[in-house]
Structures are given as C-alpha cells and as structure tokens.
C-alpha cells in the first residue's frame, strides 16, 4: 500500500498526523508534502484513516493489487 499526496493540495490541517501518527510525516512548516511509498500492513488502518480525515482530500491511498 502507498499514499500519494496531491501536489499543492495540503493546507496543513494535520488531520493525517492525528489519525496516522506512525505513517505520516509533516515538513518543517507542518504540511504533508511527501508520498508514503510503502505502508506496512500493520499500519494500513492508520494510513486509510489519515487519508479519510483530510478536509482538503489531498491524500489518495493506493491499495496493493
């Protein structure tokens, strides 16, 4: 599983961090600017909840096929 951040869409609400503290990393100003390339299975729920919580809908979860 990976999570893609839509460029320019994040506005720093940090809801992904609140729901997925072990998955998401914010930059030095509190914005999410990096894709999560490989989400380990035990953190998949955190990743999904973090993406779902984003008010800007900036995050797309790509499930393993």
């Amino acid at each position, binding site marked *: 599983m990976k999570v893609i951040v839509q460029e320019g869409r994040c*506005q*720093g*609400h*940090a*809801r992904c*961090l*609140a729901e997925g503290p072990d998955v998401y990393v*914010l930059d*030095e*100003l*509190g*914005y999410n600017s990096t894709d999560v390339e490989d989400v380990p299975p035990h953190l998949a729920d955190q990743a999904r*909840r973090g993406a*779902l*919580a*984003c*008010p*800007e*809908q900036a995050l797309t979860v790509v499930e393993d096929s």
Partner: protein
Amino acid sequence: MTAPENNRPEGAPVVDFDLTTHNRMADSNAAWAELRSTNPVAWSDDNGGAWIVSNYELVSAAFRNWESFRSARDVRTIPGAGGSPDLMPINALPVETTSLMIPEELDPPRWKPYRRVFADLLRPRAVEELAPRIKYWVTKYLDDVIETGECDIVSTLTSGVPGAVVLEWLGFPEDEWHRLGEAFHNAASFVPGSETGQHYMDELEWTFERIREEVTAVRESPRDDVTSRLANIEIDGERTSYEFATGMVNMAMSGGVDTTTSVASAAFVHLHYNPEDRRRLIEEPELIDRAIEEFLRVYPPARTHGRTVVEDTELGGCLLRRDDRLIISEVSACHDEAAFPDADKFVIDRFPNRHVAFGMGIHRCPGSHLARAMFKEMLTQVLERIPDYRVVEDELEEYPHWVALGGWSRMPITFTPGTRRL
C-alpha cells in the same frame, strides 16, 4: 439594509438573506438550513448586495479558489475610502475600526512569506512546546474559583485561558491580559449603536493603540517573544513595514483570543444540556479528540468570511461577476446533510469529520493546532475537576448576533467545590 444602487446580477437566484438579523444561534442555523436546501449559491441585496454560498461542496470550492475569490480588503467596504458602511466587511465589526489583518487579508504572491511565519510559529510541533503553558493557565484559572463552587466560566476559563496563552506568547504585560482579552471578547458581541457598544469600540481602539506601541518598541529593541519576531520579519532581505507588522500582531491577537473561547463555551453549554454526552466523555476520555472535532463542526466559531470576485467565475451554475462580493458560510457547510450524515445530530465519535470550522484552502486557520490544544486542556480539566457543573440557565447570554462569529458572552455555572492543584 438595501444596496446603495441596485447591482443585482441579471438572472441570479435572488433571496432576502440579511445576516445582520441573525440574533440567536438557533435562528441563524435554521436560516442557513433553509437557504442551503433551496439556493446553495444565491444573490441577496442585503448589506450592499452579495453572493451567498452555503453548501459544503460549493463552500469548499470557493475557499480553494483563491485565484478568483480574493481576500484583500475591498475598498468599497471602507467608508473612509469612499465605500458605504452598509456594505458587508470581511468580519462583523464596523470596518473603519478594524486594523488590517496580515496575512488573512493578503493574496498570493504577497501572502506567502507572511503565511510561512505563522505556519512556522504555530505548526503542530511548536504547539506541543506551548503545552505546559496551556496546562498551567487552565490549572491556575480553575484553581482561582474551584473552592467557591461558582464562576462565570466564560470570563474565568474560555476567555481567560486563550487570552493568557496568546498574550504571554506575544509578550504583552500580564497586567493587561484581562483588559485585552475582554476587549476582543466584547467586540465580538458588539451591537452597533448600543450604549455598551461605544465603550467596546473604545476598548478595541485601545488594544490597537497598545499593538502599535508594542510594535514600535520591539522594532527599536527586539525582545525574546513572538511580537518581536513578527514585527521584525524580513521579506526579500528587507524588514516588513510598520503597517504590516501591526497587521500581523493584530492577526495573532484577534485570531487567537476570542475564537477558541467560542467553541469551548459552546461545548460547556452542550454538555450541560446533553448529560449523556458528558457522561460518555467522563467515562471514555479517549473519545475526546473525536468529540473536539464534532464540537467544532456543530459550533464553528467563525461562521462566515467575505471575498471579492476578481474575474467572472461560474459557481454552482451561477455567474459571479468581477467585483461582486461573496459571503462564504463555514457554519452552513458544517451542517450540510450531504456531507455529514445526521448533520443535525451531535455524534460524539463522528468519523470522518472533514468540517470547515477552520476554513479550507490557503487561508486555513494557522492557529488551529493551538486552538485544539487549548480547547482539549479546558475540556479535560473541567470534566476532571468540576464534572458536575450546572449552567445557571436564566443567566446564560448568547452573543447578540451570529454574523461572522458566534459565542456566549456570559455563562454562570455552579459546581461542587474542589481543591486547588497549584
């Protein structure tokens, strides 16, 4: 109020929607619900004429479209600059008395470096460093009343704590915090033309004077505080102007002081009238983070924001013309059934909860992380220390209007006395 001249766009859905008549939260919410379900984007001639955007989908789209909908202060809303006092300014106050707010009233590209400063000062990690101060002030202000069994929880806690945290952070002298906090709190519940109204405006003018004095002082000799940092910020190698420096300090103070007050007060009213929600939060404190988001959704402090259309833009099937004014409703979006199932219910563990209480897009409230932290500490300590508090219902006072901000002016409570912690 009517427009100085009829600027109604041809073919627009027209409604009679005068926000300045929204005197009670329940009436305001009902008016928004009706508008949202019938005309999610519509023109109203009231207050100088403006488009009003009220459902979640269009509110989100409007907030995100900064290219078309600008935040820079519109000269037509400034009476001294040829505008009419009937026109709706960006906020509820008479605009001639409000100092510039930076970066809320800037558009890109000028907005960007100022926004960076606020994003840096208020990023989640920086707010974590303020946690001990937040905890201290909540503890102390509850200590001050806990042995008496009664207080006005607004002046004691929900107005007092954000005032102390923000003004300490800004570096204003402690003996002025109460007066500064009260000034913003009272200005938010200002009634034009009322007897107390003039006093409130005088007090607000005093706060602007104090901001100017502090900015002048720290530009001459900087201190180790946020006012000094804001007032001396360099943009492209040059120190920002005195006007912008005061605009940033004003932004930090007026954005920080009375907004968290509103939602925290709302939560304490809610938990008074909904004992089941109070019981669940006491028994299951792990619900608090989700509950905080739901309080924000149901009771958003900032209810509306204004914008100006800078290029003809289609929104929700309407053509918004260049120079039209636009009122975007956070509160209406937050209550939209299409975005939130059972939107009229308070669902304590609602998820997902992509509410618009802090706005969306580039002007998203940069103080949101601090607001959540202060709100959470107040809620936690009240439920731990005075869990049986009761609101004296006859003396509960709402703000006299719910245009741009909503809230409670006064909320006397009684409770079983407890013990001090400090």
